[in-house]
C-alpha cells in the first residue's frame, strides 16, 4: 500500500525567533529552516512501515515555497521514494494545506497518511484532523504507537491523563506525538541517492484548491517579558519568601 507523508518547512526548533519591529510577523530572513520535528517522526514511522513490508511506496509532500524542496529531499534521504512540492509563496493555513493534501490523496490513493501532530511555527495542531474530515477517514491523533494489520491501524494515543488506543479502518490518518519513535539521521550515501529521486512540482491551482487565508494577522507582538528575580541562599529562606513575601504557600 501507498503512504503519504506531508512535511513542513519551519524555522529550526533551536532558533530563538524574533518578532519583527513592525509587528507584521517574526523574522524569517537568514534564519535556519528545517523540517518540522513532528514531521520527521512521521517520515521515520513511514520508513519503518516500509522496512517491515507493510508499505510499498512512500510519497513525501510539502506545500510551501520552492525552498521546501530541501525538506522533501530530507524525507527522500530518510527513505521516502518520491516527492511532490505544491509550490506557493505566502501563507498557507491548515485548511488550505488539508485541501491540497485531499486533492493529492484523491489522485494517489494512499491507504495511510501520517502527519506531525503540530507545526512548531503556527502551533495550530489542525491539519491532520482537518484532512481526515475532508477525506471522510478515521483519525488517530497524537500517536505514540502505530500498528497496521488486516486493513486496520491500531493507534495508541497520548491523551490527558494517560494513553488511549483506537482502531481505525484503513484508509486512515495518523498524527505523531513525540514518543512514537526517534527519527534517524540520513546517511551520506542515502543523501546522495535522494538527489536522484523524483520531485514533481504542482501549484495549488493545478489541484483546484483556493488557498486564500481565512485569518488576517492584525499584529504580532512579543509577550510580556518576565524579569529574573532573586537568588536565595537556602531552603529556609526560600520557604520564608514563599510564605511571607509571595504568600503562595
Amino acid at each position: 500500500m501507498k503512504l503519504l507523508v506531508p512535511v513542513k518547512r519551519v524555522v529550526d526548533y533551536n532558533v530563538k525567533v524574533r518578532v519583527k519591529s513592525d509587528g507584521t510577523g517574526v523574522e524569517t530572513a537568514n534564519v535556519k529552516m528545517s523540517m518540522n520535528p513532528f514531521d520527521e517522526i512521521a517520515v521515520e514511522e513511514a520508513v519503518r512501515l516500509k522496512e517491515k513490508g507493510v508499505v510499498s511506496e512512500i510519497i513525501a509532500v510539502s506545500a510551501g515555497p520552492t525552498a521546501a524542496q530541501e525538506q522533501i529531499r530530507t524525507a527522500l534521504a530518510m527513505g521516502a521514494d518520491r516527492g511532490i512540492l505544491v509550490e506557493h509563496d505566502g501563507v498557507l493555513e491548515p485548511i488550505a494545506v488539508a485541501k491540497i493534501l485531499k486533492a493529492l490523496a484523491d489522485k494517489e490513493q494512499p491507504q495511510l497518511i501520517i502527519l506531525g501532530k503540530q507545526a512548531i511555527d503556527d502551533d495550530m495542531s489542525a491539519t491532520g484532523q482537518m484532512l481526515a474530515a475532508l477525506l471522510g477517514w478515521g483519525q488517530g491523533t497524537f500517536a505514540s504507537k502505530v500498528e497496521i494489520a488486516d486493513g486496520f491501524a491500531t493507534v495508541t494515543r497520548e491523551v490527558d491523563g494517560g494513553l488511549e488506543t483506537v482502531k481505525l479502518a484503513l484508509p486512515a490518518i495518523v498524527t505523531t506525538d513525540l514518543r512514537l519513535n526517534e527519527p534517524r539521521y540520513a546517511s551520506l550515501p542515502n543523501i546522495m541517492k535522494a538527489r536522484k529521486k523524483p520531485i514533481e512540482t504542482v501549484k495549488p491551482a493545478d489541484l483546484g484548491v483556493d488557498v486564500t487565508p481565512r485569518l488576517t494577522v492584525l499584529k504580532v507582538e512579543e509577550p510580556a517579558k518576565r524579569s529574573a528575580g532573586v537568588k536565595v541562599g537556602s531552603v529556609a529562606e526560600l520557604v520564608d519568601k514563599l510564605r511571607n513575601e509571595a504568600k503562595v504557600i
Partner: protein
Amino acid sequence: MAILILADHDGAAVTQPTRSTVAAGAKLGEVHLLLVGEGAATAAASASQIPSVAKVLVAEDASLAKRLAEPTAALLVSLAGGYSHLLAPASAAGKNVMPRVAALLDVQPISDVAGVIDADTFVRPIYAGNALATVKSSDPKKVATVRAASFDPVPATGGSAPVETIAAAADPALSSFLGAEVQKSERPELTAARIVISGGRAMGSAENFAIIEKVADKLGAAVGASRAAVDAGYAPNDHQVGQTGKIVAPELYIAVGISGAIQHLAGMKDSKVIVAINKDEEAPIFQVADYGLVGDLFKLIPELETELDKK
C-alpha cells in the same frame, strides 16, 4: 446567536479548563455547554449550576461513549446551525475534535485562543509562545480551542441552567475504542492545580521522582516534568509541561533540575510565581524565576520537605 462549548468532564463534573473556556465564551455571548460520552448526564447536572451557562446539552448515545473524534465532530456539526462560535478547551480531547469540526464546516480553526478581542478577533500564541498573534477571522462561524491558563475559570456553582438531552448524529463508524491506560492519582490535575512541582532530566530516574512527589503531597501540588524527563522514561507522558505538552499557569511553579529550554518555558511562563532549583547557576530557567536556589536537588528537595513541616 449563542456560543456552543464542547465540555471535558470526568463523569462527575466538567473540568476546570472547561470553566475557563466558559469564561472566554461568555465574552462573546450566551453560552451553551455540550457534554457527550459516559457519565455525561451526571456531569451535566453539576455543570447546570455554572452561573454563566444558559443551557446544558447532553448526548449519551453509545456511539459517543468514548468521545471518539468522528461521531463527536458529526454531532457538533449537526448542532452548528444555531451557533456563531463553537469552542472547546485546548485539551487533548478538544484539539482532537475541533479541527475536524472546522473542516466539515469549511472553517479555519483558531487554536489555543489566549485572548478574545471581539467576535471575529482573537489573540493566540505562535512559535512556542515567543510571539502573540492577533488574528481576525473572515469565516462565517468560528471554531476555536481555548487556552485555559489565559482565562480565570468561572465558578462551578450558583446558577441553574436547564439540561436538555439530545440524540447523537449518524455515526460515521470510522474508528473504535480499544482501551485506555489512565494514570490514577490523588494529586490535582496538572492544568487545574494551584501549585505545580516539575522535575527535569537531572532527576536521574523514575524512582528519584519520589522526592518531588513527597514535596507535592505536602503542598497539595500536581507533579509535572520536562520533555527530557518524559523522553528518558522518568515520568509519564501526560506529565509533560511545554509547547507540545500541557500549558499550566499555577500560582506557584517549582522547576527542579530543569534547565529551561524555550519549549518548556512555553508551558509554564505564565505561572504567577516561579521557583527554580538547579545546580547550574547559568541555567536559563533562572532568567524567568522569581526565586532561584542554586545547588544539588538531591540535598535541597528533602530539605524543602522538612522545612515545609516547620511553621
